[in-house]
């Protein structure tokens, strides 16, 4: 690409109107807006029980300007298969089928349906917006909650690590897997565009970090900063897995190549109250793991 894309260059049309029921400072709401700018109106979305159910509004008022099916918590990907099957048999072409599910609805209760849909090579874009806990029900632990994080069911901090869902999806042979971050909206936008245009007709999986002010314990004005920190310290690397091959996105590649300096993970952890019980020792351990991870990136 010759000219650098800026947020103001993106389509002006908003497919999510202001006044959603998400909290102030909610990052997945932002990611959703940018994603739909890339996907456009000819999209049918589907959402399971989660914060995004609430985000859509209360009957009969909705913020969404695209058709959306609310579905049961564990059933998003199966519903996408159903929508696609119906569109195919009815001869309706050029419609993107989009799943918009939380981490609980993806890595825990919905993993079976998602695995099945991926194996069936369902023509869909499945998004996991990952706020790293069950926020809708009051911040309980999920399989995506990171080590050390406080949730209402890990009151002294989670003792286990999170699942690596993008790797799980890549292991299914999903041809396009990517991570994204609403603090990097252009990168996010372009990934959705690529998913839609270059991998049309295939199974696509995008995993988006979704900083959550009430769930993570930071001020609602800090959402963008926290999201940036996550990537800048290496906790949330931005990459694509194209036919299983790892391609680092520019922000992360710059960190690997030393063009920008990677921030210490401590800065990220200490900016959120959910990690208040995480010891300095633990933080050091995690720092070492991230360092090692970045060493492997170097050898790419």
């Amino acid at each position: 690409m010759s000219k650098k894309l800026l947020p103001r260059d993106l389509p002006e049309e908003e497919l999510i109107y202001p006044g959603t029921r998400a909290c102030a400072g909610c990052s997945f709401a932002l990611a959703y807006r940018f994603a739909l700018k890339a996907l456009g109106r000819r999209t049918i979305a589907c959402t399971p029980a989660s914060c995004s159910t609430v985000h859509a509004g209360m009957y009969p008022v909705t913020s969404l300007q695209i058709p959306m099916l609310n579905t049961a918590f564990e059933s998003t990907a199966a519903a996408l298969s159903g929508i696609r099957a119906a569109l195919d048999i009815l001869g309706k072409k050029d419609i993107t089928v989009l799943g918009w599910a939380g981490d609980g609805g993806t890595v825990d209760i919905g993993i079976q349906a998602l695995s099945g849909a991926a194996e069936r090579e369902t023509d869909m874009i499945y998004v996991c917006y990952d706020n790293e806990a069950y926020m809708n029900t009051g911040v309980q632990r999920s399989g995506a909650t990171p080590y050390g994080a406080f949730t209402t069911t890990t009151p002294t901090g989670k003792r286990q690590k999170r699942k690596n869902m993008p790797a799980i999806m890549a292991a299914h042979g999903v041809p396009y897997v990517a991570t994204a971050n609403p603090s990097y909206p252009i990168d996010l936008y372009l990934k959705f565009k690529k998913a839609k245009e270059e991998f049309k007709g295939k199974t696509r999986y995008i995993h988006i970090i979704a900083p959550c002010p009430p769930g993570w314990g930071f001020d609602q004005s800090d959402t963008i900063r926290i999201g940036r920190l996550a990537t800048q310290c290496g906790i949330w690397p931005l990459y694509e897995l194209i036919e299983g091959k790892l391609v680092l996105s520019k922000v992360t590649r710059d960190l690997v190549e030393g063009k920008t300096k990677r921030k210490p993970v401590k800065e990220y952890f200490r900016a959120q109250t959910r990690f208040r019980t995480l010891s300095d020792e633990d933080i050091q351990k995690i720092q070492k793991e991230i360092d090692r991870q970045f060493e492997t990136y170097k050898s790419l």
Partner: protein
Amino acid sequence: MSEKLVLSGNHAAAHACKGARVQVIAAYPITPQSPATELLSRFVETGQLNAKYVCVESEHSAMTVCIAASSTGARTFTATSANGLALMHEQLHWAAGARLPIVMACVNRAVAAPWNVWTDNQDSISQRDTGWIQLYCEDNQEIYDTILQAYKIAEQIYCPVMVCYDGYILSHTLMPVEIIDQNAIDEFLPPFKPYVTLDPDDPKVLNLVTFPWIRHDHPHIEKFGGYPEIRYKLQQTLRSSFDVIERVDKEFGEKFDRQYGIFKEYMCDEADYIILAMGSLASEATVAAEILYEEGYTVGVLSLKLFRPFPAKQLATFAKQSAASTFIVIDRNLSYGYEGALCTDFKAALYTHHVQKNVHGYLLGIGGRDVNVDQIMEIVHKSRKAIEAGQLDKETEWINIMK
């Protein structure tokens, strides 16, 4: 041209779906349902049926695919049994609440634990409160005809329909079945007209969170109310669906010479005792009734086809007009801790409509234990003796069981 084929109940169901031009099928294997969906997948793969067959990874996903495809405007079908139906439970509520005219076959089988693949009605009866219409079949022709009728009923009132038939006894037994000419079916069953669909040209969000109260801050909702109003409409639709169900059956009868009614009477006119049962158990009872007649006892059989919505008034009216003193309800299911579901519902129907009869409940054939004519005759004699002895408070009895 219609043709006669010798088919199992499962294959009769698959042929009916083909005739109904089902568009999206999603199913997961379970005994004794599997041959129905296997044949459907063959119809699809060999181009005999223009449909999408989604090989899902669970029954929960099967019902989800039907829900999503129906919400997108396609005619859908699934089939399952026992634990598969139990796994669908959440989505059965969803399908009815979302008012989707999905048709499914429930090939009745006992529910684990312990494992058992043989027939009883515990699976479908356990789902009676989900808002689905439930129709029970007595033979393979009835399975075929009922599925065709089910689509017509479902799509007129936007309610899902479960067509139930006994595992093995019907699902795996061969009988001649008349396959109706495709043009005639098309005339009977027009293409599906969805009420709302997921459509980018007319975007709508379906199944939004809906408040318990009537919102007064929005002009639209005042007209439509909140969650209770949506649920009230489902109930109203079901309670007033008898007309539609009977009309569809009548039209089917006029066109194809077979009509079933919401219940079938057999030798009831002069009967002192009437057996009330569903499915193949009711057919078995007719044989018992004939033998008992030879022996000098007048016994009728009432075979209930429509279990939900429950035709309480129709049954009570029938009972009132009948000369029978005693109704013998034989259930192949049990609301554990009480009695068979049909027995409870029938008694409530009589009470509501001020009809006084003796009602004796029996449990028979649970978990596929063989049901035979002798047992049914034994049941009638038990009731007769109890009545003759003046015993008015006979409780439900489990027959042919090691106590």
